């Protein structure tokens, strides 16, 4: 995994996402989810291409049920874009890179 993609947990979620100066895209995923694996490389590309403008972090739903429940995630992959700690955009299911970028373009 690239060092550009961060890892969030129940314990570190608030300090990372709430306190961030730039928008944070959180990827709710799990090891057993095929579509989640598909979007991993896409997220790495976005993190590299937009470094400094956005942070991207993965949250493993198996290990971090609190945050998963707090945002009512019921399907993975789910991507939620947070700004000033508040959810702004929610994307459900794997999507092509172009479409992903379009959905979050207002925050880049």
């Amino acid at each position, binding site marked *: 995994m690239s060092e550009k993609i961060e890892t969030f947990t129940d314990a570190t979620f608030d300090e990372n996402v709430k306190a961030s100066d730039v928008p944070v895209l959180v990827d709710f995923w799990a090891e057993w989810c*095929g*579509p989640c694996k598909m*979007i991993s490389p896409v997220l790495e590309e976005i993190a590299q291409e937009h470094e400094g403008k956005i942070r991207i972090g993965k949250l493993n739903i*198996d290990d971090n049920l609190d945050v998963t429940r707090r945002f009512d995630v*019921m399907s*993975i992959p789910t991507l939620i874009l947070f700004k000033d700690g508040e959810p702004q955009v929610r994307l*459900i*299911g*794997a*999507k092509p890179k172009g479409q992903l970028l379009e959905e979050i373009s207002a925050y880049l």
Partner: protein
Amino acid sequence: MPERRKVVIIGSGPAGLTAALYTARAQLAPLVFEGEPSSTSDQPGGQLMLTTDVENYPGFVDGIMGPELMGIMRAQALRFDAELRTAKVSRIDVTPRPFELWVGDPAAEEPTALADALIVATGARALMLGVPNEDRLIGYGVSTCATCDGFFFREQPVAVSGGGDSAMEEAIFLTRFASKVTVVHRRDELRASKIMQERAFANPKIEFAWNSTVSEILGDTKVSGLRLQNTVSGDASEIAVNGFFVAIGHEPNSALLKGQLELEANGYVKTFDGTTRTSVDGVFACGDVQDHYYRQAITSAGSGCMAAIDAERWLEERGQ
């Protein structure tokens, strides 16, 4: 300038990747358009990316996870220098020679790639019901991927619509999490294979709503239930569920091919004489886009191999 290839393959499920493996080993340097990420089965890796245990692919005594199997097939094709591109073909034109393919804007004047021989392996996708609230509640209790979303319904009641092998597989998988799984099926008997039927009937968490169709999905912000209609009496009823999984069958991903290749009335690509030849000389079809009968990973891979050999011989005959 569009790049010209001897072989271009559209699709990267078992059919597309097997065709890639064989044509790569035949030194034909295939270019594979593998699709783009999605959760509806036209993604790289195909339908197996949405499954868990594959128990009937020969060579894996203990079974293998669908995404893992596709990862191995992909790596094997890459080992022989097949080129895989994560992109979706938006248009093809099989009138000129070489054949023309577009990625991105289908109205662009210049095609993206040219192919001497074309192998179509675009697969099939799960059908949705098309009932009220289905689209709106996808991701909020309505799921197209039991293996992705079953986890979220721990100790909750869910329903599966369908009576075939995929429906039974999903229902059985969901009993790992759900408190109860109701299979809603429009007839009074299943279409699923004997072994899957037996497993489903033996599972104490699975119940059946026979002769029933889903007429509406209920729920404001999340799924709260289903409205059912009895296909015999016409009576309406409701069941309370938090999750709903659709497994009523498949349709071929053949929209791209309309007007280009001869299709069956049900949309599947027509192939001829037990080969992978299509109505257009030099275009070959393999996998689920031309098979609505067997629809297995192994038959798909087998027909991918056939398409590669058919394409290779066809090119040879033309001295290409």
